[in-house]
């Protein structure tokens, strides 16, 4: 091999290692630096059980929205509807719970049949909760299905348009169904996912380690999606479509089918987020659909190192992105910094993260 070819080979070896370091460790390092800084700045509160559990609880539903958003962004798409689809699923969840409870109570009082469980018995409430959860998941799934079809069947020019439409539709529907006001009061069986805690190693002197159920749900869902993306054929195709849709098509990948699945998953994950959100606030409020959580989700995905151009990013990166945003808000709260400054800080971080992606792409192209 000539010396010129040698240097060319060396360059092609050196470059992926640099990209790999940026891609894998960059965000994790940023999170660690942030946590160390907050530990130093707020030594009494930051690293306490209560504070960490609080952050974990607060970011849980955003984590699920972000995961769905991440899948979509991985295919070089965008889902503007995740926040409002979560809001609509939340309203469906609460509405279904209340309607089922009222309907069953009336029927129970009327029928007078012996041996029926009382409306407020744990068995009935668990059954109602299960029904409501299914309704919420189906709502999210349907919204995702329509998002996918808008892009793959109606051939709307960009997912931006279909999901923008869906965002407005879901917002309107959430307000219509709820009458614009919160539906308050949910059974315990339903709230456990969003508000419950599991104690590890409790003793007589110590309450032990309390982990929010919501956080465990998040970790479990992230693990499943990590396996899906890295270990299955469809997961591989999702990355391929993000990298070069034309190549995927030539290779015989069913591009529309994979895209439909991605948008459906995004909708379902938004609905899972709704279940956690419902438990935390013990009600279904249409405000959740209007709060603009989709922008938080997009921000977390970008901070987590995914590329807006598709094909690049990891599930762990997304979780780290969610945590970085959560800790920045929490840390600035602990330090008594105004909410307005928090937004400016997060804005600056989004821009920085996107700029790092630009640098990374430039390094790969030279």
């Amino acid at each position, binding site marked *: 091999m000539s010396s010129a070819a040698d240097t060319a080979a060396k360059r092609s070896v050196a470059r992926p290692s640099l990209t790999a370091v940026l891609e894998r460790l960059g965000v994790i390092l940023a999170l660690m630096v942030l946590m160390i800084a907050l530990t130093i700045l707020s030594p009494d509160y930051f690293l306490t059980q209560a504070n960490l559990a609080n952050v974990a609880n607060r970011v849980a539903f955003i984590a699920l929205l972000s995961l769905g958003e991440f899948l979509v962004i991985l295919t070089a798409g965008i889902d503007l509807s995740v926040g409002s689809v979560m809001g609509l699923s939340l309203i469906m969840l609460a509405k279904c719970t209340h309607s089922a409870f009222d309907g069953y109570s009336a029927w129970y009082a009327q029928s007078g049949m012996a041996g029926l469980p009382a409306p407020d018995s744990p068995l009935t409430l668990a059954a109602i909760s299960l029904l409501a959860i299914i309704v919420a998941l189906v709502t999210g799934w349907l919204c995702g299905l329509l998002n996918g079809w808008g892009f793959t069947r109606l051939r709307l020019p960009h997912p931006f348009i279909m999901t923008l439409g869906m965002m407005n539709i879901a917002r309107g529907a959430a307000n219509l169904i709820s009458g614009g006001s919160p539906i308050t009061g949910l059974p315990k069986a339903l709230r456990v996912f969003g508000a419950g805690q599991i104690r590890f190693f409790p003793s007589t002197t110590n309450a032990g380690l309390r982990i929010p159920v919501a956080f465990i749900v998040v970790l479990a869902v992230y693990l499943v999606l990590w396996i899906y993306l890295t*270990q299955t054929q469809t997961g591989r195709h999702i990355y391929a479509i993000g990298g*070069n849709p034309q190549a995927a098509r030539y290779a015989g990948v069913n591009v529309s089918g994979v895209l439909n699945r991605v948008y459906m998953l995004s909708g379902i994950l938004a609905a899972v987020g709704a279940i956690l959100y419902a438990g935390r606030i013990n009600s279904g409020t249409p405000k959740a659909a209007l709060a603009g959580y989709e922008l938080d989700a997009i921000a977390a995905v970008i901070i987590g190192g995914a590329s807006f151009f598709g094909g690049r990013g990891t599930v762990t990166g997304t979780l780290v992105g969610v945590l970085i945003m959560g800790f920045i808000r929490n840390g600035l709260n602990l330090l008594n910094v105004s909410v307005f400054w928090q937004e400016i800080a997060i804005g600056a971080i989004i821009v920085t993260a996107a700029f790092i992606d630009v640098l990374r792409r430039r390094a790969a192209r030279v």
Partner: protein
Amino acid sequence: MASQEPIVRMEDIHKSFGPVRALQGVSLQLQRREVLGLVGDNGAGKSTLMKVLSGVYQADQGQIYLQGQPVRFQSPRDSRTAGIEMVYQDLALAGNLDVTANIFLGQESTRKRLGRIFSFLDHQKMAEDATRLLERLRIDIRSVKYHVENLSGGQRQAVAIARCMGFSARVVIMDEPTAALAVKEVSKVLDLIRGLKQHDVAVILISHRMQDIFEVCDRIMVLRQGRKVGDLPRSETDMDRVVALITGAQEKALPEKEVA
């Protein structure tokens, strides 16, 4: 008899796009282990003819035979199943994936796990198969774990070719494989094309670079305005003559039986 039968025979292919008659009765024969150069000016019908062979377009008239059997390709998938692979000019590779993932894209090896319900990617088998494939074709890429976007143009071209070979192609069509390459990479790709012969693969090479055509092709076929105007063994022609056929300075040069 069967061994004499060309692997591909296209008979009297016609294809029009509205008023544009892109192909007007073109016939093509490709023998086993042959490298056929397909040349002609822009719009002569080279790419159209190859898209008919790879199933992207359907001919208006004419018949394709594969080892003597008449075939009809409705889509690229049909032709691929029959062992015809096309290496696209714009390189159908996903830069964000590694070499292995690109070679196996759409045909990933999987293993059943968890009670044989779920099938998971068999990363190790694919990496081993890809490494063996690169070794077999003497492709110089140090690791199949490199992302394709970090490879040179020649290496990418090699991956695209290896991809076809991975699916046991019998005919590989290459559209301008050397057009975007640095000079020193061209010879590597040409070596690779010559190497394909040893693997019992026939190649159709479309190129504007006459040096490349004369370096690797056994036979050269010239198209002009949708018609075949030349079909010559390399040993019996030279660059000037082929250029004359392309430009129309010389009318025709076909084997005697086809002139009638």
